[in-house]
């Protein structure tokens, strides 16, 4: 019996140990690095010549960077959903997805912080936020919660990794000397003692409880950056809940895309099963409908009232300059994925992944629509301003930096997936034993 257990364990370990990049992996990483380097070059130009290289001017002072920031913050919330909420609710089927979610959360929160520094224009002034920050300002709340959330996400990735590091160190021949040195540095002290498990489990439980309010805070505060500013489209008491609903949706969307890619790339069909897609599909459709409900709330009542001061903004979204992007975001980000996922056939791996991609793309454009149209429609009409102040379309430097940051997130996830097991090995073994018993 012990022998058959050992064989089964070895099979799981063999399947789930990090794998070296194949040809496709190397090309993928190379492309991401190239995009990142191009983004860095654009950022060098921004540093060299100033924010004038962007299309941001007096009115649209928050452009694509802040849209991207909100998008990354939203995606990072998935860590709290998959890991914390499911774990506390006793949902065991999500075990193979927890590390993917945590890797996405860590990568997204890193780039959310970076993109804010990019938006500042003068990065050397960043420390002023800490030295001269006003606690009355939502910007400072954001700095605090992002720092806190980043730290929690790192811990939530680290604690469940400890038992896996022991396994990684056992199979030294699979990793190579440099990685083994790194594993030894971060976790060679884990011996699998009952006291260690007790401390580790307790820490994970505390983290799961802590991360939920912090995750809600980070995105609520991000929404308050807008809602505390009196502008058409932002003047809403509903913004916190609206942002959190959207964040859970895009987070879940990104997880199903990552699930599909890792499943295919590393042949993990036995661990990330069709049932996982079925269940994540159900969650995704629920979140899409919830976010659609919030969108109807956000737009239907202002549309019904059509206040003079908001009319230009709303007409711009519904039928004007931004209508194509607006309806694309609503259809692609919510309605079409809902239609796909409502059907059982739509909850197979490929359709779920397609719905996930649509959700993520729709969500990115949705963030762009939250920021830009409002800034182009101030309550006081624009007078005597240059033509460039009246319109906004990102410059190539802004696009390059944005794509560089998106590539950066994927690169961090790719590197984490190369270094650490994508699916928790020890937890999978333990669960298999529990099922067998």
């Amino acid at each position, binding site marked *: 019996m012990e022998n058959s257990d050992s064989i089964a364990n070895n099979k799981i370990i063999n399947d789930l140990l990090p794998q070296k990049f194949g040809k496709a992996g190397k090309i993928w990483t190379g492309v991401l690095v190239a995009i990142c380097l191009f983004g860095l070059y654009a950022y060098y130009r921004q540093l060299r010549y100033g924010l004038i290289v962007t299309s941001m001017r007096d009115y649209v002072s928050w452009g694509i960077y802040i849209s991207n920031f909100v998008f990354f913050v939203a995606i990072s919330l998935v860590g709290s959903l998959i890991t914390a909420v499911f774990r506390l609710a006793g949902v065991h089927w999500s075990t193979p997805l927890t590390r993917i979610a945590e890797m996405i959360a860590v990568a997204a929160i890193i780039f959310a912080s970076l993109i804010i520094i990019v938006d500042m224009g003068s990065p050397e002034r960043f420390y002023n936020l800490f030295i001269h920050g*006003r606690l*009355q300002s939502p910007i400072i709340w954001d700095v605090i919660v992002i720092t806190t959330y980043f730290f929690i996400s790192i*811990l939530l990735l680290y604690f469940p990794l400890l038992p896996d590091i022991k396994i990684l160190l056992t199979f030294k021949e699979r990793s190579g000397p440099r990685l083994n040195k790194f594993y030894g540095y971060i976790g060679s002290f884990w011996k699998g*003692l009952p006291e260690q498990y007790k401390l580790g489990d307790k820490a994970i439980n505390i983290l799961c409880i802590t991360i939920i309010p912090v995750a809600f805070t980070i995105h609520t505060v991000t929404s308050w950056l807008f809602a505390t500013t009196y502008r058409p489209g932002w003047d809403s008491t509903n913004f916190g809940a609206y942002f959190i609903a959207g964040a859970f949706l895009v987070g879940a969307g990104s997880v199903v895309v990552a699930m599909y890619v890792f499943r295919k790339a590393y042949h993990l069909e036995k661990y990330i099963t069709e049932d996982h897609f079925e269940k994540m599909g159900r969650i995704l459709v629920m979140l899409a409908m919830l976010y659609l409900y919030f969108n109807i709330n956000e737009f239907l009542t202002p549309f019904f009232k059509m206040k003079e001061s908001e009319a230009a903004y709303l007409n711009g979204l519904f039928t004007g300059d931004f209508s194509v992007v607006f309806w694309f975001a609503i259809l692609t980000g919510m309605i079409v994925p809902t239609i796909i996922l409502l059907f059982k056939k739509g909850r197979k791996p490929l359709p779920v992944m397609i719905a996930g991609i649509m959700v993520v793309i729709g969500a990115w454009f949705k963030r762009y629509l939250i920021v830009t149209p409002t800034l182009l429609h101030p309550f006081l009409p624009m007078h005597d301003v240059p033509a460039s102040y009246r319109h906004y379309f990102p410059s190539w430097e802004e696009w390059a930096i944005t794509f560089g940051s998106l590539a950066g997130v994927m690169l961090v996830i790719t590197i984490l997936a190369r270094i650490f097991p994508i699916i928790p090995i020890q937890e999978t073994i333990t669960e298999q034993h529990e099922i067998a018993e």
Partner: protein
Amino acid sequence: MKSLNNIKTAVLSIAILFSGYHGFSQGATKGDLSVALSYFSVNNQVPYITAKVKTKIDGRFQPVAGISLKLFLDKDSTGTFIGKVTTNENGEASTTIPVSVKKEWTTSTKHIFLATFNGNKKYYAAKGDLTISQAKILIDAGSDKKITASVLELKNGTWVPVNAVDVKIGVKRLGSDLPVGDKPTVTTDSTGTAAADFKRDSIPGDAKGNITLVARVEDNDTYGNLVIEKTVPWGAKFIPLSNFNERSLYGTRYKTPIWLLVAAYSILIAVWGILITLVVSVFKIKKLGETQA
């Protein structure tokens, strides 16, 4: 047959193209411009000229931007060239009278300002002129809060009073002038003076109570626009009331409201306290492992 059809199609396409081109050129007609000049002398300093260029679009006059005008004093020649100006988006352009025409300016008391536009692809050539007699305005404010404005014209080298000129006497405010009394405009008498009583005792001034009195001759056919200002301590001292320096949400960094400090730091201490405890747990796990080893 097929090649014949191709030739027919090509000829027809070219014919349509040319007919279309002809049609567009018919629509592109030139417009007429109206050039109006105004003369300004503010506080009897160097005068300046403002040109306003308009055109009629759909029955209404609209300002025209980007029109280059050449301005001359008395005659259109190199020696009397004042300068070249280009209109802004309001159709306006201004320039002061340069030192280069000082000789012409002082030899006569009556002058004609000329503006010429040579025409471009969109507009025909246009001209404008303005005749001005040199004049100045003075202001005096007595201790009895009586304001006297005097309008004087230069004749044969001496300044002589001008009768029957409308003068607006007011207090300079942010948007426009506020009349000092009941009547916004008073007319000069045979001594060239127009008087008004100051009846705005409670008007806010600066921190010392200073306000600026203004006497203005506007769009006069003979003298143009003449403006003179005088600062007097007749206003109420203005002490701005602001809670900016108090503990408020609008206050500076160190003025954070106490309740916000308590709430924020309580949350921070609670969350970071937990996180520090968890980091300590890592060291405890490490110690357990090392002890075992």
